Every structure is written in structure tokens, then in C-alpha cells.
């Protein structure tokens, strides 16, 4: 176990994007190119800053920083604390965000209101990283609310009737989730006297208030993670956003909910307590329903982005299931699935964006023969889809394998069956798209230029697809190693 060192890096990765938002906002009056470049550079610098924490984290250190006291008498201090789990999530977030920003430059070049989009994108990056590097629940709550409210602007970017309705639903449900989370944090403070993430097992006596706290946290974080029955905002909000924003919403922002639940299960309550009171069963049941529901409804959707959104619901169900099983392999699978899903879903959404940009079509029935016209994009799409289904040796397979092992370790083979059925359903809704794209008849009778999408978009697509490929069953698997370390940390006591 390493020691606790003070480092400014956690604060930097959070505040630097937020401050750069102001700069970008003012720069855009000068030139659009400068704004774009500045946004990309900001995201790259943020990624490098997160990666810079790697050497210390690998040794097992924890980076802390105390920013300032907000309400000292209450013990509400703005602390930042990065351990392995936080680092994992911060790393994947900043990486995918960086690729999404690069992708945005060409994707958004024909869109309107770019002046609003880039500052919001960068600010949300800061807020999202703030959630991951927060050192106590109070700070986490602050960044959680900030991210929720600001990402609304990304969701309603198109300003169509549909987008506004979806955005309204999103923000109402997010506020409800935020209030439930506030209830949970306040109750935790009341019961435990502290909300700092330095402690584990803050609430270990069962009482009505403790159970209410648990449910409040489930509602608060589950709303964000798209858990049944709080997922209803997701199928409307994710498709309606621009493609890079959808990739980030599905790929990263859902994970904040999962991260929060990780912290709740391991820091607020602890594993033994949840297992002995069997409250965790609620989460397991909801996770199973989420998996089956997401996959099943995805089959019925014809809009490409809506299908991907429902698929995200199902995939988050995997993470929740892994979390709630509490065996080592299951948790490993859950954390690794956070990594893999970010890569896979990010890739899928930005491929979808490329398709929509090039052809203007969103209905999958009209996407026949597009594989010939856009080979690189569709190969990347295929790779990511196969990873989603769980074909070895891609990364999706590795996470599902671990989840299945974890279910067996926990003595509940039922969940393996659930995993198999849902993988089958995943196949049912991904394969038709791919088959139609490569072998289907050309439904489009319009002339598309035979070249693929612009370079910057291709770059992000290819990078993410390659990540799906190499981080599967392969010897150099950085995310897997990180996930293993995080699991050891959590199982070993959580500090």
C-alpha cells in the first residue's frame, strides 16, 4: 500500500478545462480555427496531465489535495483524492474526450452554434474529471450537479423540437437524481459524521435512515447511469445530441453514475454490511432487468443512434451487475467493462456520426451497401460491434468472461445465463447492420463520393477501433492491468 502524497495534478485536471472555457469563449470572436485548435490542445493537455499521475498511482500512492474550506464547521472541505479507481476513470474519460474533440472539429464544421458547443464541451470535461478526482461526497456532488446542468446545453444543441423535448426530460430527471443524491449525502453526513472518501464503511448499522440513504444513492447515481427504471431519459437524450456529444454522453457520462455507485458500495457502506443485509440484491435485480431490457428494446429500434442508446443501457447493466456481485472477478469485469464500453460505444457513436454526416440517413434499413462506400468507417464499426457482442479476442469478450467467472465464483450461475442471452441479443441487433452494410443491396441511389470521411474524423474512429482490438486478449493490456489493481484495492479494503 503506497502512501498519500499531495499533488496539484488532480486540481489541475479539473480546473484547467474550466478556466480554458473562458479563454475559448473569448477567442472564438477572433477566429474559429483558433477556437478549434485551442479546444483540442486543452483536451490533449488534460489527457497528458491525467497520464502524468500514472507513475505515482502505479506505485500505489494516493494523490490528495485540499483546495479550500467551504463550510469548515460542517467539515465540508473541497478535497481531491485520486486513487487507482479514480485514475482509471479519469484516464479513460480524458482519452475519449480528447478523441471526441478532435473528431468534433470536422463533424461540427457544418453545424451551427459552434461557439456554444466548444466551451461547453471543454467545461463538461472539467466537471466530469472533477467527479472522478473528488475526495469527498460533497465535492463529488458539486461537480456532479455542474456536469449534469452543463451537459444539458450539449443535449439540446440541435435546438429542434425533438431536441428540446428530450433535453427537458433529461434535465428534469437529472435534477431529481441530483436531489436524491443530496438526500443521500446529507443522510450520510448525519449518520456517519463525515463524507470523506478516506473512510470505508461509514454506515454499518442498519436502520430505516440507512436504507433510505441507500435507496437515495441508488436513485441519484442510477438515474445518471441509466439503470432501470430511471433510464427513460436516455433513449431520447443520447440520439438527439450531436455525434461526438452522444459518444461522450454514452461513453463517459454514464460511467459517472457507475463510479458513484462504486464509491457508495465500498466507501459509504462496505461489502460485508451490504451482503449481510442483502440490500445489494435490489441492485442486482435492477441490473439484470436493465441488461435484458436494454438489449431487447434495442432490437426493435430502427434509428441507428437510438439503437446504440438502448445498447448503452444494456451495457451499463453489465457494469452494475458486476458491481453488485462483489466477487473479485466480477468487479474486475465491471471495471474493465467501463474501459471497454467507453472504447466500443465511443467508436460506434462516432462511426454513426460519420455515416450521418456523409449520407444524411439515420434509419438502418436505408444503410444498405454503405460498407463499400465507407470502408474504413464500417470496418471500425464492425470491430466495435463484434467487441460488443463479445467475440474473442476483442475487449468486450474479456470483460464478459470476467463477469461470467465472477458470477460463478459468487455461486450464482443464473447470471451467466443472463450474460449469454444478452450477448445473443446484442448479436441480433448489431449483426444485421453490418451484414446489410457490406452485403446488402444499395438502397441509396444517390451518388456519394467514394472517399471516406475527413482525416480527423477517421483518426478518432480508427484509434478507438484499434483500442478495442489491442486491449482484448493480448499481452499488452494497460486497461486490464489498471482494472486489476483497482479491484485489488477495492477488495483489499478500499482505501
Amino acid at each position, binding site marked *: 500500500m503506497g502512501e498519500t502524497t499531495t499533488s496539484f495534478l488532480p486540481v489541475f485536471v479539473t480546473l484547467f478545462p474550466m478556466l480554458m472555457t473562458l479563454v475559448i469563449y473569448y477567442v472564438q470572436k477572433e477566429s474559429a480555427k483558433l477556437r478549434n485548435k485551442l479546444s483540442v490542445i486543452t483536451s490533449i493537455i488534460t489527457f497528458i496531465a491525467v497520464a502524468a499521475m500514472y507513475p505515482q498511482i502505479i506505485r500505489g500512492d494516493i494523490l490528495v489535495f485540499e483546495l479550500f474550506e*467551504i*463550510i469548515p464547521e460542517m467539515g465540508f472541505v473541497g478535497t481531491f483524492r485520486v486513487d487507482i479507481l479514480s485514475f482509471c476513470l479519469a484516464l479513460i474519460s480524458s482519452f475519449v474526450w480528447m478523441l471526441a474533440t478532435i473528431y468534433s472539429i470536422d463533424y461540427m464544421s457544418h453545424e451551427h452554434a459552434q461557439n456554444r458547443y466548444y466551451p461547453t464541451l471543454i467545461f463538461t470535461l472539467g466537471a466530469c474529471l472533477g467527479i472522478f478526482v473528488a475526495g469527498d461526497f460533497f465535492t463529488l456532488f458539486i461537480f456532479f450537479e455542474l456536469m449534469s446542468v452543463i451537459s444539458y446545453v450539449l443535449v439540446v444543441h440541435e435546438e429542434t423540437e425533438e431536441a428540446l423535448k428530450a433535453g427537458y426530460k433529461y434535465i428534469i430527471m437529472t435534477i431529481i437524481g441530483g436531489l436524491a443524491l443530496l*438526500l443521500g449525502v*446529507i443522510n450520510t453526513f*448525519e449518520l456517519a459524521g463525515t463524507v470523506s472518501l478516506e473512510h470505508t464503511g461509514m454506515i454499518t448499522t442498519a436502520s430505516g435512515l440507512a436504507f433510505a440513504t441507500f435507496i437515495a444513492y441508488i436513485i441519484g447515481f442510477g438515474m445518471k447511469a441509466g439503470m432501470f427504471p430511471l433510464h427513460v431519459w436516455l433513449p431520447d437524450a443520447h440520439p438527439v445530441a450531436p455525434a461526438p456529444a452522444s459518444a461522450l454522453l454514452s461513453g463517459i457520462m454514464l460511467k459517472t453514475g457507475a463510479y458513484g455507485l462504486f464509491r457508495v458500495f465500498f466507501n459509504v457502506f462496505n461489502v460485508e454490511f451490504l451482503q449481510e443485509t442483502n440490500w445489494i440484491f435490489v441492485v442486482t435485480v435492477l441490473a439484470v432487468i436493465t441488461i435484458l431490457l436494454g438489449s431487447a428494446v434495442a432490437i426493435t429500434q430502427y434509428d441507428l443512434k437510438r439503437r446504440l442508446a438502448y445498447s448503452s443501457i444494456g451495457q451499463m447493466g453489465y457494469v452494475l451487475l458486476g458491481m453488485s456481485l462483489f466477487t473479485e472477478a466480477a468487479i474486475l469485469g465491471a471495471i474493465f467493462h467501463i474501459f471497454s464500453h467507453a472504447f466500443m460505444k465511443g467508436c460506434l457513436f462516432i462511426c454513426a456520426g460519420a455515416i450521418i454526416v456523409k449520407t444524411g440517413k439515420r434509419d438502418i434499413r436505408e444503410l444498405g451497401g454503405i460498407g463499400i462506400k465507407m470502408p474504413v468507417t464500417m470496418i471500425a464499426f464492425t470491430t466495435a460491434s463484434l467487441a460488443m457482442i463479445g467475440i474473442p479476442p476483442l475487449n468486450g469478450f474479456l470483460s464478459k468472461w470476467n463477469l461470467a467467472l465472477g458470477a460463478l465464483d459468487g455461486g450464482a450461475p443464473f447470471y451467466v445465463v443472463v450474460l449469454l442471452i444478452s450477448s445473443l441479443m446484442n448479436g441480433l441487433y448489431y449483426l444485421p447492420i453490418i451484414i446489410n452494410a457490406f452485403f446488402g443491396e444499395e438502397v441509396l441511389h444517390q451518388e456519394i463520393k467514394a472517399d471516406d470521411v475527413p482525416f480527423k474524423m477517421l483518426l478518432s474512429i480508427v484509434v478507438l477501433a484499434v483500442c478495442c482490438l489491442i486491449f482484448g486478449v493480448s499481452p499488452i493490456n494497460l486497461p486490464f492491468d489498471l482494472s486489476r489493481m483497482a479491484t485489488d484495492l477495492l477488495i483489499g479494503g478500499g482505501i
Partner: protein
Amino acid sequence: MTFINVIHAHSTVLLIVSFLLFSFLMPILERWKNSWCATMAVAAHVLAFVFIGNLSWRVFTEGTIHYELGGWSPPWGIEFVVDYLALFMLITISTVSFLILIFGTVDLTHELKPKVLGLYYTLYLLLVGAMMGLAVTNDFFNMFVFMEIAAISACGIISVKSDRECVEASFKYLMLSAVGTGCVLLSVALLYMIGGHLNFAFAAVAIQDVAHIYPNNILVALALFSVGFIVKAALFPLHVWLPDAHSSAPSPSSAILSGLVIKIYTVVYLKLLYKVFPIELFDLLPVFDMILILSALSIFFGSIFAIVQEDIKRMLAFSSIAQIGYVFLGIGLANSTGLTGGLLHIFNHAMMKSMLFLSAGAIIYCTGIRKIDDLKGIGLKMPVVMGAFTIGAMAMVGIPTTNGFISKLYLALGTLDANKHFYLAIILISSFLNCLYYFPIVINAFFGESEEEDGEEEIQVKKLPLRMSVPLIILGAGCMIFGIFPKYILVIIERAVEMIL
């Protein structure tokens, strides 16, 4: 040096006297040089800052100040007491009214007829002076006099704009206010009958002695006080004068009425409950429970009524009813966290609601639109105003990093400390309801498309003068700063709460 000595010795009374003096001189000035009226009003406030600075320095270094008027010590003379609670209210009143006044100097030129413009400042300064007097008073009759001054001037600043709704609303407010004051005077009579003292401290001792002989007097007095202050502070169900009054008045008047006037009565009520009435009384009579129930109803119904309003100022007025419910919730919880939350909410709401009313006023000034549905797309044309409105809306809902969140947090912790979980649910549900009526306006303003019926119905926007945008920016910045660093104001509040409980 003697001038400084004078200020040092007599700040308390000079504060109030200066406001009264300036307001008396205002009609003369209005005849003579009309354009100087606004400047004089601002100068009065700046002078007040000097006095308050002196008072705060003295309170922090020496403790509570007892000032005897004319050198006559109580119980024969009138006494002003400046403790932390009074200091807190003085700071709140002076800063917020200063910013509202700066805004008003421009806005009023368009809302009022020119011949009453100068007289408006008379009423405004009277109102501020009376509120400051209510903050420091320690005497029953002094309180009554200042209450009446405040009531008349408050009704005055509504009816100074002689539209039909203004006059009617002002009449309703005056009548109900007179009932409230009547009840208060009657209860003063009842307490004087048995206590024989008008000074709070002396009366408390006297009432303590005779409480067992005349319990009915004290009970009836407490009931009448409550009714009187509930009418004046517009708690449900005696809030009926507030929506008309605050929505039809000129925007600076609405801002000061919603932001400060209804709050000062809660502080006076708090002072009475804790300083005058004996503690044992509250074991016999569930006063605090009653306050809690009424505040919960207020919070809930204020929000519900606000959701269905079409006019933006009427919606803000109903929202004020809900917010005053929060303050009474803090009072009713009767523990230190809850009371801190209630008092902090006074400060926060003064800033938030003034900012919201001033931005509504700015919108009406620049575009003439009052209906919420017509405000589509205005955010792009008036970014400063809508930015301030958005910060105010986020603060009302309770988004973290705004000051509204901090006061709601304290209130929520207070409900948990008092084991009244039902009120915690009320706080959370009402935050959600707040979101339901504030966010559509913000969303419409920034993302809605302005209705173009013939292609010519675009909203015409006048330019916003600097004197109107600067107070908005200062208040908005204040909301955010006190959201991130609330400890600067919490210092005063916590000491005040310690002294009360």
C-alpha cells in the same frame, strides 16, 4: 477628531436619523433641483455604509452595543441594541438596497411619471431607514412606530406608479397591513398590562415573574403577535396581498419588497420569540410546530402557484412566498443548524430575488414583454440580463456553487438534527418544483426560437444602460462567490445564532 468621535459614539442612531433626514429633505430638493434627487439617495446609502462599517468594527471587537437614545437609560429611555443579528440585517439591508437603488435610478425614469420621480426616493429612503430601525430596536413601541413607517412607505412605493393594478394592490396591502399592525399593537397592550415595561429585556424579566398569574394574557399576546407578523411576512395563508403588490409595483420596488421588507419582519418575530417570551411557554404551546406546518404549506403552495403563472413578475412574487417559508422553517426548527440556514437564506434570498426582479425589470425596460411565453430567444439579445437570471434560477433551485445551495444544505441538516424528516422531503420536493418553473424560462430564453408570425414580430430590444447592468452583475457575482465561500457571512450568522439560542 470630534467628528469621528461623534460618529463613533452615535452610529446607531445616526444611521437611522440620516435616512430620515435625507428623505425629509428630498421633497425640497425635488422642487429645487430635481436631477439631484437620485444622487442624494445614493449619497445617503454611502453614508450609511460608513456608519455600518463603524458599527461592525465595534460589534466585532467589543460585543453587543447598547445605545441609549438621548442618554436616558432603560427602562425610561429607548434603547437600540446592535448585536450580531442586527448587524447581519443591517449589512444585508444596506448592500442590497444600495444595488437596487442604482438600478432604480435609470429604470424609474421610464416607469414613473416625472413629477413623482423625486418623491419616490423619499419613500424609498423612509422604507430603508424604517427597516434599519426595526433591525436594531429593542423596545415595543419603537418597533410599532418603525413598523408603521415601513408599512406606509412600502405601500407608497407600490402606488407611486398610478396604474390601476398598483393602486388596488397597494390598497389591499395597506388594509391587511393595518390589520397586522393592529394585532401587534393589541398584543403590546396585553404584554404591557402585565409587565409594565416596553423594553424587551425588562419586559422579559417582568413577564417571567408574572407568567403564572396571567397566563392568558401571554398566550393571547403570542397569538396576536404571530398573526400580525404572519400577515406582514406573507406566510401562507395570510399571503394574499403579496402577489398583486409585488407584481404590479415598479421593478425596484418589487425587488426591495420581496427581498428585504418581508424578511425584516421575520427577524423581528425571531427577536420577540427568543428575547421576550419565556422559554417554558414554548413547552406548553406548540408554537414552533405551528410555524413549521405553516412554513411547509407556504413552501409547497408558493411553488405550486408559481408554476401556473404566466406573468413573470407574478411568478417571482409567488416564489417569494415559498422562500419566506424556508426562513420560517429555519425559525421553526429551533436548533442552531436550522436557524443558521434560515438566517443565511434571508441573506441569500435577498440577493437572489432582487437579482431576479431586477432582471425581469430590465427585460421589461428593454422589450416591454411581461408574459413568460413571449420571452423566447431573448437570451441571445440580452446576455447579461439572462445570465443573471440564470444564476438566480440556479441559486433558487439549489445547484451547488450558488449560495442557495448552502442555505438549503443547512436547512436540510437542521431538519435531520431535529428528527423531522418530513420537512427534509418538503425541502427536496420544493427544490424540484422550483426547477419546474424557473428552468422553462431559462431554456426558452436561450434555446427557444422567437415566434415570427409575419416575419416582423421580432422582439425589439433597447440597449441596457450601464447603471442597470452593473447591479445585476454584482449581485450575480455575489451569489456565486457566497456559494463558494459562504464562511464570510456565516461568521456573523453563527455568532448571532449562538446568542439567540
